[in-house]
């Protein structure tokens, strides 16, 4: 008997039945394929403008920061102003994402820019967010060649650029966006605020192993 047969056999003994027949398994397969939603809290079932407001409030509550800008052209200014205001280095590693290639970085020649994944010495990363969940102020950051995971983890400061139209209410809406736009990648991170630990006397300290600062640049794109 293989180890797998041992484990499954023992489970079936406990459940007092043999392996499910095709007929018995059909409704379960159907349940997986249809992935029905359960109860979704009312707090995020509101109009889109209110979802954006809720998202910003929740990010702020979780010690992140958000700035709203009018368009892609405002991104370099918003980022360099943020870095200057926080006394952070203006050396950024940018995700190789088409939307970020459209950003007029040359408007701010003092920004020192490299494109690629993050290394251990990169102080600041800029990535393109995939979606954001208003319910808890959570960013959905799936991996892809143009979305390296290390950018979300290694730098001290993580800056996420996101179109306001990509803010959704509950997590379930974000999953549906992901399913519609390519399916499950190698890695999906839900990020809610900067890294922290409460392991020392259960008292919250920001800046554990991941970024100490999480900043969201929200671009108004007038899609309701």
């Amino acid at each position, binding site marked *: 008997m293989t180890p797998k047969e041992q484990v499954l056999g023992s489970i079936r003994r406990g459940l007092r039945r043999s392996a499910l027949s095709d007929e018995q398994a059909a409704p379960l*397969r159907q349940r997986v394929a249809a992935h029905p939603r359960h109860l979704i809290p009312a707090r995020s079932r509101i109009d889109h403008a209110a979802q954006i407001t809720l998202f910003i409030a929740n990010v702020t509550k979780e010690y992140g920061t958000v700035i709203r800008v009018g368009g892609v052209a405002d991104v370099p200014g918003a980022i360099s102003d943020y870095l200057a205001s926080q006394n952070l280095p203006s050396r950024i590693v940018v995700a190789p994402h088409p939307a970020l290639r459209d950003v007029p970085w040359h408007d701010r020649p003092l920004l020192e820019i490299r494109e690629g994944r993050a290394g251990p010495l990169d102080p600041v990363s800029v990535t393109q967010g995939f979606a954001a969940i208003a319910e808890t102020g959570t960013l959905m950051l799936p991996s892809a060649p143009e979305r390296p*995971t290390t950018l979300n983890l290694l730098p001290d400061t993580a800056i996420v650029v996101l179109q306001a139209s990509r803010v959704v209410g509950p997590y379930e809406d974000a999953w549906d966006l992901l399913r519609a736009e390519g399916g499950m990648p190698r*890695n999906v991170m839900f990020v809610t605020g900067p890294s922290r630990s409460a392991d020392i006397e259960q008292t919250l300290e920001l800046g554990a192993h991941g970024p100490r600062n999480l900043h969201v640049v929200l671009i108004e794109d007038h899609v309701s």
Partner: protein
Amino acid sequence: MHISSPQFHQNARRAMADAGLQKALATSRPHFLERRANAVANLPEFEMLRDTARDIKNHTLAHLDFYLETFEQNVEKAGGKVHWCPTADDARDAVLRICREADARTVTKGKSMISEEIELNDHLERNGIQPVETDLGEYIIQLRKEAPSHIIAPAFHLNRDDWETQFRLSHTDLPADRVFAERRDILTEARAKLRARFLAADVGITGANFLIAETGSSVIVTNEGNGDLTQTLPRVHIALATIEKVVPTLEDCTSLLRVLARSATGQDFSVYTTFSTGGRRPRDLDGPEEYHVVVVDNGRSGMLGSEFQDMLRCIRCAACMNHCPVYGAIGGHAYGWVYPGPMGSVLTPSLAGLDRTKNLPNASTFCGKCESVCPVRIPLPGLMRHWREREFERHLTPATQRRNLGLWAWFAQRPALYRTATRASIGALKLLSGKRGRFKSLPMAGNWTQGRDLPAPEGGTFFARLAAAERARRP
């Protein structure tokens, strides 16, 4: 298996006398209670979500074989591999084999209770591989060569001084006269030390809060980001998970996540909730090349179909121990094995056998607080009672206790005699207590009166009062 549960009474007594531990419990516990209460108060649907969470887990457990096989198929579709492990030995060997095939010298680890259960670190060390715990709490207890005292806050028993002392002892390459002015300085030092470890590791081992059948994903929930660095930077990622972690779909997982962080740390959502599905994809710039899921049974399947099946719903949030007055008095180490508090008092006898752990289901006043906060509504006091019954049936209960229980049962089955006797003793106690209405000491109640006075009964028995009330109500 290192287990000191048979010495529970001595452990508990030592814990009550341990000033450092008592200070840590007094400092840390209120934070958990307050944060959970706030999180729950801010979500009107919370009680309904607990029902949903329970139902999802029950559905999954009833079809556990199906969902585990579906999970495996989808892991393989994503280029990963599932290793089925009936026992702790099998799981240790599977991890070691993967590490050897990867030619690993060091592995980084995210926090995992199943890794503690199977004593993985000792096994890796014995075989020349150095495991490095990267969760802040796990890191310090690894330095101190201790076991975790809490399932989500491993260093719950330590005070700030203990951290400073240990870091000075262990990080000898740093200036001895450095100052730890704030907690943040401790955190910053650990971060710098561990950053080098993350970058050097050959294999990263994480646990899993959930496995998703629909997608073949393993899910970790953390606040520090150490789990993510552990599973992203090394060439090989191993996720260790027990069979009951599987859920059918992303939606099922999402519903469970809504109650997990709120019950655990009182956050609406943890900082990092991450879904890993297979290894690096073509053109990806980072991520592990290999993805393995080690699926461990180690006694869980034996709980299916028994009165302890409900325990398999547990999502390891620790709300039960955070709210338990017994845990609050003695901390986690006194319980003697990996899982402390009410959930441990049910789970440990199932996994380690009742003979060695019969004290644990008795370490409860049945106040019911644990059940009232459990996000998946596990009837913990009821399950502890089942263990007490088994203990009695199997004659594991001490002779004096059996005799007293037998005596009580004999009386209880003779209602007339029982009522007469209780009426008489209540009257006698009332008389003996005199004007003070309480006893400073009483024969056979020494353990009680040592710490506080015993109040004398007032009025008659329950039945006498009930009868009087009914007479009064009748016209």
